[in-house]
């Protein structure tokens, strides 16, 4: 609710957030360069998770296509970095495919501002178009989900197939500088980390505002009963389109940051599996709670980087098993589990029905 009262609970919450933000910003003082780079990558993933939670956790729309929005943002940034590295000449992979001239749609990406704008705009427009043709016709639920997955397939095939323009399977890599600053230097990395942390916090605040606003309440109403919302006089399609677009834009921003930290983007990083992994982060952290989604993304990726190299097979078994367990036994994720313990008494008084309301 919007009543801003300074209850003790609220104060503690704010103190908690402030502590978390302080910890985020001071991390470069404690972590090694390697760890910091990893953490920066996880923060970028946490940003996607926030966007995904907006549509899945709050609106009940499951997108298995967020890898694409993330990837398009990443490619936009990669195109800029690549052109900066090659000094405006056609990048190396174009030469390998026999392309001598820089294609016209590559040219403007020399400009950093343009690349950033496109990194947000392209995913947004794609999401808006897909949202328009689906939500307007009440294509929803699994039908929508499957269409987003098909979008992933065709986008990755397109990226692989148009090798001369996209670098094909290898993707785009081999950057040197950003706005003149060397990407390899520890100083640049630290600044990029801070930028990522700041963006994460900004996106978090934005998402908090959205879910707390009346707009956010309409989204939750759509999740609970789309048709009923219609008979109150809202047009759910518009709401779904807008939130899907916002979510895609957030994913695009995250993708841009991701490239800066990782130094490569290729089709395999935005395919079916990465897209569905993003959903897993949110599911584990707790759909419908923003902090859960963000922490889920960080925790899962941390676990992955710890275990997947040591036990690649075990990791896949673990991930598959986790999917099953979380979905079947803890539909609200870890955040939900904590909430359940905390509010067990209160819920007992309240009901038996509302909780078992899967996001369909």
């Amino acid at each position: 609710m919007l009543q801003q009262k300074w209850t003790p609970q609220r104060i503690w919450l704010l103190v908690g957030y402030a502590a978390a933000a302080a910890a985020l910003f001071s991390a470069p003082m404690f972590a090694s360069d390697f760890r910091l780079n990893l953490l920066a990558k996880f923060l970028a993933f946490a940003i996607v998770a926030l966007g995904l939670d907006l549509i899945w956790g709050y609106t009940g729309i499951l997108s298995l296509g967020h890898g694409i929005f993330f990837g398009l943002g990443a490619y936009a940034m990669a195109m800029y970095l690549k052109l900066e590295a090659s000094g405006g000449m056609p990048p190396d992979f174009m030469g390998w495919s026999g392309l001598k001239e820089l294609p016209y749609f590559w040219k403007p990406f020399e400009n950093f501002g343009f690349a950033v704008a496109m990194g947000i705009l392209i995913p947004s427009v794609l999401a808006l178009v897909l949202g328009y043709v689906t939500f307007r016709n009440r294509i929803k639920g699994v039908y929508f989900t499957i269409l987003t997955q098909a979008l992933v397939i065709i986008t990755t095939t397109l990226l692989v197939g148009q090798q001369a323009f996209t670098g094909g399977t290898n993707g785009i890599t081999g950057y040197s500088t950003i706005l003149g600053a060397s990407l390899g230097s520890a100083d640049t990395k630290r600044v990029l980390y801070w930028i990522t942390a700041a963006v994460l916090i900004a996106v978090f605040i934005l998402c908090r505002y959205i879910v707390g606003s009346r707009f956010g309440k309409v989204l939750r109403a759509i999740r609970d009963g789309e048709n009923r919302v219609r008979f109150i006089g809202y047009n759910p399609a518009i709401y779904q389109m807008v939130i899907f677009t916002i979510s895609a834009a957030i994913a695009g921003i995250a993708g841009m940051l991701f490239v800066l930290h990782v130094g490569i983007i290729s089709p395999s990083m935005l395919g079916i599996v990465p897209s569905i992994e993003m959903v897993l982060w949110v599911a584990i952290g707790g759909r419908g709670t923003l902090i859960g989604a963000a922490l889920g993304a960080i925790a899962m990726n941390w676990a992955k980087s710890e275990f997947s190299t040591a036990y690649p097979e075990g990791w896949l078994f673990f991930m598959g098993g986790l999917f099953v367990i979380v979905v079947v036994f803890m539909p609200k994720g870890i955040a939900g589990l904590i909430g359940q313990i905390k509010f067990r008494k209160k819920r007992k008084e309240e009901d038996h029905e509302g909780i078992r309301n899967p996001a369909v």
Partner: protein
Amino acid sequence: MYLLQLFNGLSISSILLLVALGLAITFGLMKVINMAHGELIMIGAYSTYLTQNIFKAYLPASMFDWYFVLAIPASFAIAFVVGLILEMSLIRFLYGRPLDSLLATWGVGLVLQQLARSIFGAPNVAVTSPSWLDGGLMIMDGTLLPYKRLFIIALVIACLVAMYFYIYRSHEGRRMRAVMQNRDMAACLGVSTRRVDAMTFAIGSGIAGIAGCALTLMGSIGPSLGTYYIVDAFMVVVLGGVGKLVGTVLGAMGIGMFNTLFEYWTNASLGKVLVFVCIVAFLQWKPMGFVAMRSRSLD
């Protein structure tokens, strides 16, 4: 030339249909999206591979060509059993929660894939097709219809006919349709919905097994075999609508044919884009697919 393309389209359609058939049934009946369907296909394919190996190892070479005849029921049976176990241990918790079932079964698929990788190794393995399926039917100069593809088409038709009789002519099928149309009412009338669900899911899985068996004719097989087909198969379900076999058939034909044509006119990656655009455009006209069951409930 177009004749050959048409035949190729038909061939692709038939495989898609075989893959989508089980999906459409389980989705229509229990509103469960089974992402592990692709892995059931993979299981069917490896069953065929095992059958082949057993023939190679224990039976005289003259018998080898007939392994395939046994492989089809064997693939069906093994996938059937795996499906049954899956249904009883997991799927039944997920009825009426399509999105959750999608995620959970994806996890199952991941585990099954990894299991296959551990058992059979990550590289693809080749299955030798029986020699009686080598060669093809020459219908005119330069146009050869391979027996393998013809065989697959025939196999799909056989499965389709069997499914038709099962669904529309048998007692079990009648119960299944009753549950599909009104689960609560059917339960009230004494239909054991648990049994119907389990059977239907297992049969759907069995058909996936047959699809896997058929795919061994098309090339080598690997642990992630199913993932190549699963999304296309889901598109068939979306396009065809749920509840009737004819929708699935039309959906598979539509996607298979257009895919072939577009790829022939443009190239593989652009062709896929065009097919997707066409599907979305079609859904603008009929959001629920070719066939849709109407219901009067609010949500």
